[in-house]
């Protein structure tokens, strides 16, 4: 079977697992909500400051949420050792990663889009006129987070203290994502919104670089 066919089937499995319980989505949404509310106490959220800090705290919330949300990605395959079964059933182990990172990107994007109106209301920042650009930035950023996060959750799942370890490994690696997406989102939330192509391109390059690295080295992450 081709890589694409394998990936689609595995992606279907990931989505089915999640949408049966929706545990991951609900907890992540609540977590981001809590962070957004807590952030509002640290500055005056209805002022011009919200425009300046808004994009940064939004992405910080996404990053923290992702570092928790990506935790069970490989962990839940351990309970019944389903990872071995997965490895036996696909010809290219990259399909496992592709399916998982596609599912994670989708989950992240979904939570981000669900929380965007809440953020816009709470911090009084209009988002509708630039919505399509925001979706693009959210997609590129979430893809980058998911590519790196999926790879690292395969590492942390095999270590002790895994719950603490994943954020520790993941967050410094995601510095470029935080910097670039904050910059692009900030430009979009500006009084005179504009698309920052340099940052958008940078995010795409980040995604591509780590997708290639994962493609080259991913199979070793799943070795018994």
């Amino acid at each position, binding site marked *: 079977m081709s890589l694409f066919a394998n990936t689609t089937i595995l992606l279907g499995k990931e989505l089915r697992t999640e949408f049966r319980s929706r545990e991951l989505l609900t907890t992540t949404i609540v977590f981001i909500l809590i962070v957004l509310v807590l952030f509002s106490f640290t500055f005056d959220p209805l002022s011009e400051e919200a425009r300046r800090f808004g994009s940064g705290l939004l992405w910080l919330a996404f990053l923290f949420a992702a570092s928790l949300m990506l935790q069970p990605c490989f962990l839940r395959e351990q309970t019944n050792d389903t990872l071995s079964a997965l490895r036996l059933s696909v010809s290219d182990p990259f399909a496992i990663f592709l399916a998982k990172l596609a599912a994670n990107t989708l989950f992240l994007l979904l939570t981000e889009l669900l929380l965007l109106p809440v953020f816009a209301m709470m911090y009084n920042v209009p988002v509708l006129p630039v919505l399509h650009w925001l979706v693009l930035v959210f997609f590129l950023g979430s893809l980058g987070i998911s590519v790196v996060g999926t790879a690292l959750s395969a*590492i942390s799942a095999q270590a002790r203290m895994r719950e603490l*370890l994943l954020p520790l*490994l993941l967050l*410094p690696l995601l510095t*470029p994502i935080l*910097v670039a997406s904050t910059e692009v989102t900030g430009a979009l939330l500006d009084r005179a919104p504009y698309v920052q192509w340099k940052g958008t391109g*940078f995010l795409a*390059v980040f995604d591509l670089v780590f997708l290639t*690295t994962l493609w080259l080295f991913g199979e070793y992450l799943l070795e018994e």
Partner: protein
Amino acid sequence: MKNVLFVAVVVLLLGAGAYAAFFIAPTDAKQGLIYRILFLHVASAWTGLTAFFISFIANVLYVWRRQPQWDWLGVSAAETGLVFTTVVLVTGPIWAHPVWGIWWTWDARLTSTFVLWLLYVSYLLLRTLIEEPDRRALLSALFGIFAFVDVPLVFGSIRWWRTQHPQPIIMGEPGSGLDPLMYKVLFFMWFAMLALMTLLLRQRYLLEAMRGDVETMRRQWEVA
């Protein structure tokens, strides 16, 4: 005997480097004497990067060849690099305070050095959290590869978007306005530091090799 000779050579080189830094290099017109910390600061930064590069090569070779020697080299180089990077992070503020009037500036090189430092601290931490030697070697090598791939992206993102704040007066661009004699002293100092790095690396490698042997013996004894 070989060891003593090696140590003697390194001490001599460092002594000569220090002498050149204090007495041969001309005093800076604007900064006066304090600039002489440059020879320690910049030479350590270059040496640290060299060590991390060695670690990266060793990581790739481990994933490829699976010989424990590459794992030993990888961890030794990472630790040695961390030592030199720590020197950079300590001497940086000592230099910055009298010259710029602040202890820390979030400029591209300082900040990426800090993120680099964090990445390799996570690398060493990860190693302590995996019991089984082969798994520890493989997973930490893979994380090392991901971390090293991230370094140029971290530097690029911070350079493009986070450096509009206080600009360094001297060395705003790499090496701008440095006296030719200062360059010579700097390169000599780098050479001396590389000798020190090689010495530390060698000792650390031998220690790691010994640990590996002890581990193997312990296992054999447990089986018997």
